[in-house]
């Protein structure tokens, strides 16, 4: 325990100086390189495989030199490309949001479902469906965002009010309490409105299919800002991991750092949920996988999570298209069923988790 603490402390304090551990940097570069290759594979698979397979050459032709009226080209350009891009951006946002959540709450079981953010977004989407008759994904978008933001403000505000200020335990408890409240309200609406249930049940499993490209272009700026904030927050999270007092001793502005992280989580979760629905599992599993690959330094965890998230989500989506052809299973279902055994394996093996 004390030795890990010391390494973490060195990393946190030495952050501004030269890379503290030479091995970590080269290992990090290696992991990132490997993940980039994996990501390229996942992107290609997502473009090639589906209800109808398109050859690699045809995919390439469709991208650079499309022929009007060619069915394969139509499938690639109108269906596969948007779907793949949504998976890429959504996966990165979910993965990084999960890493940030686990860091800021110092709780390894935190995920974007936890701070109440997903359930806030879900409740807002349901209000849009049931109360205002919105049915398109483009229509859900702003409701999901508003819901996520309101949830974050309520949860963070309530956690900040007590005399101890924001503590990880309070954040986690208030977030779970908010989730329970929102879920109850969701259930009330669904029990009394059959039509809303019919729309909502499909939205809430989470899917990459049939998301128009303008959904992506609308949320992209938010995701980019969120990712930049997340990259900048690595050092804050490293310091927070040592406890608030130590972090303060290291010269970190704990409150501002935490606010920054929560803001990034809202931007990333709001975007991801409005695009693909509340797929929380990615946010839980990816940071753990990242920790196994790269260690405890949050500057690296954020980067690795941003690459692992889309790999996981796209892989799940491709598997979902292949298992029941010509029908398909939603990515939100597959990601848990395929991802959970991996998570269990990590949990069973890793000493870091057991500590």
């Amino acid at each position, binding site marked *: 325990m004390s030795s890990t603490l010391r390494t973490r402390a060195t990393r946190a304090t030495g952050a501004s100086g030269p890379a503290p551990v030479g091995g970590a940097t080269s290992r990090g570069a290696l992991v990132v390189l490997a993940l980039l290759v994996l990501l390229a594979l996942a992107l290609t698979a997502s473009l090639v495989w589906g209800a109808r397979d398109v050859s690699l050459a045809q995919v390439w032709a469709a991208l650079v030199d499309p022929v009007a009226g060619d069915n394969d080209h139509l499938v690639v350009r109108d269906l596969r490309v948007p779907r793949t891009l949504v998976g890429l951006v959504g996966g990165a946002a979910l993965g990084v949001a999960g890493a940030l959540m686990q860091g800021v709450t110092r709780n390894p079981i935190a995920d974007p479902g936890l701070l109440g953010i997903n359930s806030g977004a879900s409740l807002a989407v349901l209000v849009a469906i049931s109360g205002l008759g919105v049915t398109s994904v483009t229509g859900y978008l702003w409701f999901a965002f508003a819901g996520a933001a309101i949830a974050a403000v309520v949860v963070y505000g309530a956690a900040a009010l007590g005399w101890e200020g924001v503590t990880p*335990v309070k954040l986690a*408890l208030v977030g779970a309490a908010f989730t*329970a409240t929102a879920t109850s309200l969701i259930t009330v609406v669904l029990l009394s409105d*059959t039509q809303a*249930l019919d729309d909502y049940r499909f939205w809430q*499993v989470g899917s990459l299919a049939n998301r128009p490209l303008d959904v992506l272009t609308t949320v992209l700026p938010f995701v980019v800002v969120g990712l930049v904030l997340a990259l900048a927050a690595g050092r804050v999270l490293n310091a927070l991991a040592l406890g608030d007092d130590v972090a303060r001793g290291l010269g970190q502005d704990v409150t501002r750092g935490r606010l920054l992280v929560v803001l990034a989580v809202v931007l990333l979760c709001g975007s991801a949920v409005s695009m693909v629905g509340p797929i929380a599992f990615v946010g839980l599993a990816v940071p753990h996988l990242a920790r196994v690959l790269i260690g405890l330094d949050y500057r690296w965890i954020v980067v690795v999570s941003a690459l692992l998230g889309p790999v996981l989500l796209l892989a799940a989506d491709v598997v979902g298209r292949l298992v029941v052809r010509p029908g398909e299973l939603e990515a939100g279902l*597959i990601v848990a069923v395929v991802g*959970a055994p991996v*998570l269990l394996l990590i949990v069973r093996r890793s000493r870091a*988790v057991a500590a």
Partner: protein
Amino acid sequence: MTPQVLADGLPTLTPARHEAAATGLRRSRRRRRARRASVLTVLVVLAGALSVSALMMGQFPLTAGQVLGALMGADEGSARFIVVELRLPRLLLGILVGVAFGLAGALFQSVLSNPLASPDIIGISQGASAGAVAALLLGGLSGAAVSGAALAGGSLVGVLLYAVAWRGGMTGHRFVLSGIGVAYVCAAVVGYLLTRSEVQQAQVALRWMAGSLAQAEWSLVQVLALALAVLVPLVALVARRLDLLLLGDDQAGSLGLRPELVRAGVVALGVALACAATAAAGPVAFVAFVAAPVARRLLADGTLALAEAALVGVVLVVGADLFAQHLLPADLSVPVGVVTGAIGGPYLIWLMATGGTRRG
């Protein structure tokens, strides 16, 4: 732990200050005991008042005297039927479910030392839900068969978690994290079943998953009461060991305890309690999660607070069921689990916002 620290420092004090310190210690101990007693009294009175109201209120309002008469066996025809056959089973089911969830949550949260580790988060409820929803939607079953499926689903998750988390011993983190992973799989199964069924059927499944007391009848109450009659004494038996375990594994080990075994036993009890209650009433939202943090916040002395957590569970379930039955529009027939979440959630947020926390 303050008393110990003070006691260690005592020999260096002059007799006069020694006397003063001892008086202070006694006074603070007395104050804590007084607070404990008053919290316990308030909770018991509250639970009693809610229970009596539950028997009095309804389409045929009864006076307290009539209720008492019916319970004592006075033959008053309709009053007796209403109380004994209709309202009492529902009330008792609510009380038993409240006790079971309150204890289960308190056990999990303390033994796994994570305030988020309640059965509704670490997969037990989700496993039970997946079992019940499969029985409802795939098998077209109802009643006791659904309860059986829920029991099977929840226990299966419990066993699976042992298999994964046990590696020459069990650590809290490993168990909790595996549980969340399994919870997601179960949620995916439920999501799949909900999207591939008739929407009316999906609504039935949703109602079960919210948790309800409407299905209460004497046979159900008897089965659950029997289960608790076995489990609750066992909880009382391990409570002291659990208290020692909270000192830390090394300390507990030096006191002759085997931390892994105690932890495994406590978790097994928690799983059994949660499964029994869920099979009877569905995964009544948030009761297991909120009972222990509220009880500890009320006591504010850093102790285990098992009895208090059970009482908070009872107050929450019985109170929420009263609210759902009599204060909300009757045609909605809102299941109790919706109200427990909608009341318990904001209450916990309010507790967090208005005061400090001690030990989560």
